[in-house]
């Protein structure tokens, strides 16, 4: 069984992303001496947490062959909403529940546009992104909120032993998402939907429910990310989630999850998210000018995806070869 899972891992796309990550890791530790310190690793993980959490939910959506461009804005909206509620004295647990419900509602809205109205998810979620970002501006009234209750900010800044709590949350989210996608029938429904929606329908997969669940999962993880982001910053402003939108997509795709759906998974996403975080960390440590940073990120995205596409094709031809053999 162990051998089998190693073989499976090698076969999966995340294997190549893993090699990419390992390569970047080795290079980083060679050229930046501060990279491989406990503190820095913790820093990288801490910074990657929000991206990681966002990507777990998005992975579910992309696995169905859809796209969710609204995750960044959704996390921003939930963060803003929570901050406003906390400011007006609503107790923390209630705020959590409202935040998660808001995330779920955004997910349901996306699911409705994609599953019922049948808009292409790309444009539907972009529309949602636009509206949700607009709502954050309205909620915040353009302001920035500071000074949230300590019990709340501890989520973002607190430690359990030497490990920041936020990393633990991210880890839990990753495990939950992994189990959901890989070890449950629900996860298989998502893969089935993404591999071939019609076949899923004919195989009695509840396809609407699956699609909605994927978007809700994405909405809820965005909500959790939003809450943690706000807690970590001890502040909320209406644009704080914007930058995460496309970055999250990049993390998932760099991790080897196919944009056509049905292929990939959480393992790759974790690798992708950490890879992107490490690159920014290393560039900061090296003092690379901020103007050049997008270029490096862009090149890394292109190289990883090109490599992924190449390896996929190579795998296809080798499999074709042995299936000829077996005939």
């Amino acid at each position: 069984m162990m051998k089998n899972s190693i073989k499976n891992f090698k076969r999966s796309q995340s294997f190549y992303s893993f090699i990419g990550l390992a390569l970047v890791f080795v290079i980083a530790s060679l050229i930046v001496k501060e990279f491989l310190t406990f503190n820095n690793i913790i820093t990288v993980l801490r910074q990657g947490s929000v991206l990681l959490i966002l990507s777990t939910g998005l992975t579910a959506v992309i696995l169905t062959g859809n796209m969710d461009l609204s995750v960044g804005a959704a996390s921003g909206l939930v963060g803003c909403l929570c901050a406003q509620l906390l400011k007006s004295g609503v107790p923390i647990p209630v705020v959590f529940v409202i935040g998660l419900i808001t995330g779920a509602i955004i997910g349901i809205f996306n699911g409705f546009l994609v599953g019922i109205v049948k808009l292409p998810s790309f444009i539907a979620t972009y529309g949602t992104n636009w509206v949700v970002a607009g709502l954050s501006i309205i909620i915040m009234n353009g302001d920035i909120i500071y000074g949230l209750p300590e019990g709340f900010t501890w989520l973002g800044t607190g430690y359990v032993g030497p490990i920041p709590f936020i990393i633990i949350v991210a880890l839990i989210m990753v495990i939950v998402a992994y189990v959901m996608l890989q070890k449950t029938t629900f996860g298989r429904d998502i893969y089935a939907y993404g591999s071939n929606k019609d076949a899923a329908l004919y195989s009695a997969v509840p396809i609407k429910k699956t699609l909605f669940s994927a978007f809700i999962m994405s909405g809820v993880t965005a909500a959790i990310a939003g809450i943690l982001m706000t807690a970590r910053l001890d502040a909320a402003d209406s644009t704080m989630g914007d930058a995460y939108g496309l970055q999250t997509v990049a993390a998932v795709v760099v991790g080897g999850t196919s944009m056509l759906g049905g292929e990939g998974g959480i393992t790759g996403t974790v690798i992708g998210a950490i890879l992107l975080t490490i690159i920014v960390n290393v560039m900061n440590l090296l003092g690379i000018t901020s103007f050049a940073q997008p270029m490096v990120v862009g090149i890394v995205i292109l190289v990883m995806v090109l490599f992924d596409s190449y390896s996929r094709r190579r795998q296809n031809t080798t499999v074709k070869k042995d299936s000829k053999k077996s005939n």
Partner: protein
Amino acid sequence: MNETILTTRGITKEFPGVKALDSVDFDLRSGEVHILVGENGAGKSTLAKVILGAYVPEEGEIYLGNEKVSFKTTRDALSRGIVAVYQEFTLIPYLNVAQNIFFNREPRNKFGLIDHKKMEEDAKSILQSLNCDYINVKLPTKVLSVAEQQMVEIAKALSFNPKIMVFDEPTATLSEREVESLFERIRKLKESGLGIIYVSHRMQEFKHIGERITVLRDGKKIGTVNIDDVNDKELVNMMVGRDISQVYHRSENKFSGEVLRTERLSDKNGKVKDVSITLNKGEIVGIAGLVGAGRTELARLIFGIDPIGGGKLFIKGKEIKDSSPVKIVKEGLGMVCEDRKRQGLALNDSVLWNTMAVSLKSFFPKVLISRKKIFEIATDYVKQLRVATPDVYRACKYLSGGNQQKVVLAKWLSAKTDIMIFDEPTRGIDVGAKMEIYAMMDKLAVEGKSILMISSELPEVIGMSDRIYIMHNGRIAGECKRGELTADEIGSKMLGIGGDTCEC
């Protein structure tokens, strides 16, 4: 007339580890239809592709007349007048008929821009020569029927002024009437002196159209025979290489109790009208009809894909309302659907997950799944059905049609549904696999499962069914027990002609 226009000598094509073609000789005369048959993987498509220039053989020569040629690409072959009509349509949905026929070879006007007028006129004249002038050349091909699209595809091939045409399974998606009109056109083409290579699985087609048959097996040529000199059984022997005493074997079986009943069932689009049928335990019921008669729509209606428009549906005596596949499968009904590649399988996904697609929830009612157990279950079914795959992790797209269909069967067997709808269960698969599927159906019936089989291949319906409903234009046009009606009688009912006015 009738001189040999194409000859291949000793064509050998190797893929790593396998000889796809082993020293194959083949010849084609002008004005003949030469049929190429063989099981999947026998090399017939490979041979066609070598002739079309898509594959370059390792050994062997191709002669056009007396001239030796070697094709490196399809363009080389095209320039020598060899064109293909593919099974999967190569039309572009939102370009019109004329644009599709002259795609990438559009006539230009003096400004170097596309001359739409000339293009449309040329397209019209080609369609006219095919007796298809009812097709409007200005319509996007998306809105045409499948048969019309096929004609456009042939017109496109003809626009190259070919000497040799290769048809690769052209009838797979056509109804019987459409097949007939296609054959009429092929005959016309043949008369005009074209040489035609026709790759097909369907044995009953050959007689209508072909002159000679070349049978391939395992990359080797078994023989070329005149069509009139050989009967079905001999042909099957040549293809499969073993003696098959009976293609359609049915065991003695008793039926008991009704498991499925529809009462005046209709859909919302008027494709299915007032259909009342019953299915008993242990029974195989065939539904015969032309493509477009509403058979597949009926299946979709019963399976809960489309909403019920009127009438009632009972499964095991229980009325089903607001049906959905999820609900229907819970009631124990499964469906092997018509379009294996689009609806039956997730081609990119592995044999394992395709096998488990329906049954996962019944094996793991507690949500969490165990990979080890899944592996065991899937491997078990793969072995049981003799699916030819090195392991269950192989993606389905790499399997042959017959093996893919076996995976679809495995999916429903593992789900242990006791009522099955089989929609065109043997379409596009080779004889060997076909017989295995028939045997499986028989076994299921003996085990007390019930099967509703939809097919446009009459011999199959007649050979396998205990009872047959004949559908025409969305309605049930007739019903008969096993052996009650002849193929011709059923055929005329399918066409909407009453049994008494049968034109035999």
